[in-house]
């Protein structure tokens, strides 16, 4: 089978800074990482590759430096890497991003499984994976913890609200991955990084994948950002004093007003 893994380079959210005056993100000096859910998706795909000798292609969309996450995928074992990079993609929302990724998958050729992270930690939308599936007319299984392949049967363990399901699908199918609790992310050895430079890597533009400009970027994105601002600052503590009965009553009142207790 042929597997495509979609990965995204994101700023390390633990290091993100905000300009307090403008509310804009300060990207300078913030390290970029592979989106952790995509990392898990990649590892899940590579485990299947190991077991069944599947072919794995890593795709990302982003500026030229996003090559990093593609190369990392190859260093961890993927066979081929593709970066969609073009000014025309800039400002794409989840709809336009799914459109471009779907076009790229079509260009890659016959694809039996697509792995995505459940969401990216910079946007937290969880919309791109299902969007790609829809554009390609594939079924989707979202929020998976584990995926197994048995012949033409694809068996996934997925989360649902309040529990989980074991589901079965046939290729082609798109899966979005959450991280299961015992997961240990792997990173490539120095040798593997060096060797990844010799694997096939392509940078594709919008015209390379036959994506139409009217569906890309700010112009093609149905949603637009109206305003970005820092979350409301925590105000100074509201202070009360009072021991015993008084203090207890105050705490109960606070918990009610904050909806932790019924009125």
């Amino acid at each position: 089978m042929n597997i495509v893994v979609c990965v995204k380079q994101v700023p390390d959210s633990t290091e993100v800074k905000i300009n307090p005056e403008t509310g804009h993100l300060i990207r300078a000096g913030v390290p970029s990482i592979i989106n952790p859910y995509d990392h898990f998706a990649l590892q899940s795909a590579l485990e299947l590759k190991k077991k069944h000798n599947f072919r794995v292609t890593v795709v990302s969309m982003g500026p030229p430096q996003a090559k990093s996450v593609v190369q990392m995928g190859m260093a961890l074992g993927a066979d081929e890497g593709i970066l969609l990079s073009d000014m025309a993609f800039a400002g794409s929302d989840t709809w336009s991003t799914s459109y471009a990724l779907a076009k790229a998958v079509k260009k890659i050729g016959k694809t039996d499984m697509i792995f995505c992270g459940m969401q990216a930690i910079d946007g937290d939308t969880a919309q791109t994976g299902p969007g790609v599936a829809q554009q390609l007319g594939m079924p989707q299984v979202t929020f998976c913890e584990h995926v197994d392949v048995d012949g033409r049967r694809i068996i996934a363990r997925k989360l649902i609200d309040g529990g989980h399901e074991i589901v079965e699908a046939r290729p082609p199918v798109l899966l979005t991955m959450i991280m299961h609790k015992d997961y240990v992310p792997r990173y490539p050895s120095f040798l593997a990084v060096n060797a990844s430079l010799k694997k096939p890597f392509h940078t594709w533009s919008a015209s390379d994948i036959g994506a139409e400009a009217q569906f890309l970027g700010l112009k093609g994105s149905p949603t637009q950002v109206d305003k970005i601002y820092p979350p409301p600052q925590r105000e100074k503590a509201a202070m009360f004093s009072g021991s015993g009965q008084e203090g207890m009553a105050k705490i109960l009142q606070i918990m009610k007003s904050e909806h932790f207790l019924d009125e």
Partner: protein
Amino acid sequence: MASMDTISRNLMLDSLREYAKRRIPFDLIRELDEKNEFPTEILKEMYDRDTLGVHLLMIPEEYGGVSGGTFDIYRICEALARIDLGIATGVFATFLGTDPLNVGGTEEQKEKWLKRIASENLLVAYGATEPDAGSDLVNLRTRAEHVVKNGKIAGYRITGNKQWISNGGVADMHTILALAPGGPSWFIVEKHMEGFSANKHEDKHGIRLSNTAGLSLDNVYVPAENLIGMEEGKGLLQAQAVFGYTRVMVAAFGLGAGAEAMEHAIRYSQQRIQGGGPLSEKQGYTHKLIVPNYVRLEGARSYIEYTALRLDSGEHGLQTEGAIAKYGASEWGNKAADDAIQALGGYGYTKDFPVEKIKRDIKITCIYEGTSEVLEMTIYRGRWQEHLKSRGRYYLDMADRLDEVHAKEPKAGAHAAALGLRALAAVLEECRVQKLTRHQHVTFTLGRLICAAETAAVFSTAAAAQKYSETVRFDREGWQAMARVFAREAALKTALEGLALVLGSADAAVNLSDAVNMEAIQAEQKGMIADMDLVAQKLKQTFKAK
């Protein structure tokens, strides 16, 4: 070797950091530090080619390595130092021990030994230092005698003692410097050879996770093919050839450990409330304990990168540059770590927070691979020659180039750096005229002044450049403010201390005060506080409280 592309280098750095995050938590480091214990298992894992393979950086691709260049090795050494300087030293010792082979080994020797180091994950030690021969290798006592069979030299018998050898007690193979009949030469000695033994592991002030031991060689027989380069008497040259390079590595240690301590302090200062506000908002705290230290470390970084890039472009030697890089980074790193303890107050003095250990560890960077004093002498010697050779133009020409930089980009402190260089030229010339370098104190002090003035020049040039290095974590506004702060401080110190130095050793120095242009240097101090405020602000943004 040229360095690799940025993306590959950063992937390796990420792998190293993630490994450390998972396998070397601070609690473990603390425990090993307490027990004075070398983490054999961790080092073996870090050398494991499927896990990390850090040692492969030093080994060319054709022998199974990844052909790292100086810039790559600087970045990895900095990252290692941020994890633990003891572990970093364990890796560094292998780098260093591999060096004589890289530099002087024959093709067959490289084929055999470099391949083995790469594939068998061998820990290597570099055996040069002896009880009576430290930075000064002239008093080498260890001897290698010929063993002749059938009229041919079949091998050598080595006898002697080595001291303070990093990895000494744990290495699988050693490169040992010994005096052969033809002169000092490097030999490959394996740990299982008869007559070879390691002494007990030293109880050190810091880098307690690194193994340091003396070595005893009692009539150890090594075959002739273990003589590196297959020619006697090349040992000192082979050792000298890599000083520029190895000192960049130790410079990266000083930088990494010092910056790590500072970043702890910066994050801490945003949470610690004193007198109604966080410490990070108080000039009495930031402008004393944080800003000057961080600025100096950024200066050291730019000088390290300047040297590394020159080495990567194929220049050889660069002994003076290597000395400046290491001297600046280790001395400033040491000071930064000390101030980081102060910045954390009582917490800093406990073993609960890592700065106390960093302070103990980082001291070694002022000692090994050439003590700070040896480096002061090396820097002075190298540049004094340039001063004489150019008839006093060396620093004046450099200052002229800084003026050009300033004309294009006036915000990078290049003007202050140029003033500092001209003051330095004036001081050197006065020392020549009055023959003051007969005082050793004068020469060593000049070494120190040269380091700061040249670093200012390199820092300002880098801060004026269109494109910044991948390592700069600040925006243009912030980094240029740092360069200005550095250049002003360096210029003022060069002029003040240079003047004091001459006045203290000569009968008179009539025109020197004018020659160092004290007035202009003082005028250049304008805006210093505002710049420090800005730097404090940028540091807080970049290293926000976790």
